[in-house]
């Protein structure tokens, strides 16, 4: 999706620090790391883990929307299906948590490859409708298939022992496992965005015919970023199933696809840190408004409308404009 202001363009003039990362990015990652190490002692660990899972989900989604320019309205399919497979692997097959997460992730990758190769045959809003429709198909499949438990979902998933050694039943121990996955995920996404592959993606996003005329096989790039995004969404979903010991229809329904779009839009599309902020805001709002029933849905709708009409750059996008540096 093209935006009227492009914070990425400023990237060239910023100072570069360790490992080719601009210094202020390094500082933000470091501060985030320190904060998240301290977080479980200050906040409720399960809540922070929920934020981390959704933040990774939103970052994976942002890789596709913010950098690939492709609006998928069906990312719940990869998140939810990975969550089901991971829960099933941990509960029925008795796999250790890391293997269960890998199993869920692989299924999300294969699903992403299948749906992505069909969806990239259409552009723009058709792409959004196709991904939404396929995600709904996955939802109906989850509703009927035997292993998903239908309306009940898969409950009481054991957290198990990490590598068969470390007991994850304590939320504090589990937290650091989730934190490691989260950081590995967002650093990988950061690396992808700033690789030559990421530059080509941005070129395609800005002007697809020009990228084609320069000799890039645009469809391969689009499919690759689609599969990467689906896979990382799968990591988030699979981890979520272990954290909450639950995989349910909510994870695979279209409302979940809408939520991840909202998190990314609110935080700032095409920014590195925006989706994390967006996820934190939306999850916090859901927590505090949970007792008000449908007001959560109404609130999300209002945020959508306001964000689209008034600040399309998102929270971090606006901040990046103020400090004149890409975030």
């Amino acid at each position, binding site marked *: 999706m093209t935006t009227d202001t492009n914070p990425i363009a400023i990237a060239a003039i910023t100072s570069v620090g360790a490992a080719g990362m601009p210094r202020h990015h390094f500082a933000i990652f470091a501060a985030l790391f320190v904060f998240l190490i301290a977080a479980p002692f200050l906040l409720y660990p399960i809540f922070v883990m929920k934020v981390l899972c959704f933040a990774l989900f939103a970052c994976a989604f942002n890789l596709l929307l913010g950098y690939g320019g492709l609006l998928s309205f069906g990312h719940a399919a990869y998140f939810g299906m990975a969550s089901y497979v991971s829960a099933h692997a941990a509960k029925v097959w008795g796999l250790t948590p890391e293997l269960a997460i890998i199993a869920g992730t692989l299924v999300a990758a294969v699903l992403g490859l299948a749906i992505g190769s*069909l969806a990239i045959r259409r552009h723009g809003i058709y792409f959004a409708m196709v991904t939404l429709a396929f995600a709904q198909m996955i939802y109906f499949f989850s509703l009927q298939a035997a292993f998903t438990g239908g309306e009940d979902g898969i409950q009481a998933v054991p957290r198990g022992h990490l590598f068969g050694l470390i007991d994850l039943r304590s939320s504090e121990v589990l937290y650091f496992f989730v934190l490691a996955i989260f950081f590995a995920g967002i650093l990988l996404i950061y690396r992808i965005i700033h690789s030559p592959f990421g530059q080509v993606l941005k070129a395609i996003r800005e002007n697809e015919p020009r990228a084609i005329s320069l000799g890039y096989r645009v469809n391969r790039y689009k499919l690759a970023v689609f599969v990467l995004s689906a896979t990382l969404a799968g990591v988030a979903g699979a981890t979520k199933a272990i954290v909450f010991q639950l995989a349910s229809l909510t994870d695979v329904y279209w409302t979940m696809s809408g939520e991840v779009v909202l998190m990314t839009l609110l935080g700032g599309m095409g920014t590195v840190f925006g989706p994390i902020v967006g996820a934190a805001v939306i999850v916090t709002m859901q927590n505090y408004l949970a007792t008000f029933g449908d007001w959560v849905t109404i609130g999300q709708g209002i945020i*959508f409308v306001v964000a689209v009409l008034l600040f399309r750059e998102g929270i971090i996008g606006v901040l990046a404009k103020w400090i004149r540096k890409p975030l």
Partner: protein
Amino acid sequence: MFELLGIPPQVLFGQLLLGLINGSFYAVLSLGLAVIFGLLNIINFTHGAQYMLGAFGAWMLLNYLGVGYWWAVFIVPPIVGVTGIVLERVLIRRLYHLDHLYGLLLTFGLALIIVGFFRQFFGVSGLPYPPPPLLTGGHNLGFMYLPNSRAWVIVASLIVCLATWFIIEKTRLGAYLRAATENPVMVGAFGINVPLLVTLTYGFGVALAGFAGVLAAPIYAVNPNMGADLIIVVFAVVVIGGMGSILGSILTGFGLGLIEGLTRVFYPEGSAVVIFVIMALVLLVKPAGLFGRSV
């Protein structure tokens, strides 16, 4: 009584009839989406919510004002259309200069707000809407029993679809509309008020959704969530048919309803996903859609 592949004809024709009814809703809703998309270039995600508004409009007229079904058929669609016109004038209009995807996001947000309010105030259990006396009976056609209410839905949606086709393809107003779809700047230069045309088109497309909602009220329970899942299937219908042609939308809608009905007879487990499978096949073979132009 003869049997077809082990299926009694009552079952077969019964399911085909149900398929035709679903097809009627697909046709009217995808027609509305296509009309809106043609001129505004946005996918109206609020369409499902506006269909729900139509059903609630009929329910409210009956329960609050005592106005019956036959009046509702004529009163509710224009009212729903006017709510659409307000949305277009106040909100959607501001996004025309941006990427079309923002229109999708805005209408998605509007759908969440509308559905959320109705869920908050009317619950999700579904409200009954008694069919009017004229629609309660039925006719025995020899090979099957045809309830009046269902025959009416099919006939009414066919009439509305064909009337829409006639307006767009055969009248002067329709000619302006088609011209504005091709080149709005040029049409504006000829002295046609294109922004007004855009507003009215959105209102008309929304009124079609409201009309489908009124038709649905006596058949399905009136429920805030009734449009949400339906609209996603309609999106698939639109992808299969392509939005380039009015008759194409109508044919695809009814055709897919029939196919869904047949699937329910021969492979019931697949009936929920058959349209999505067809969408996958169409994307493989003819990505632009059966009646669509490329991209």
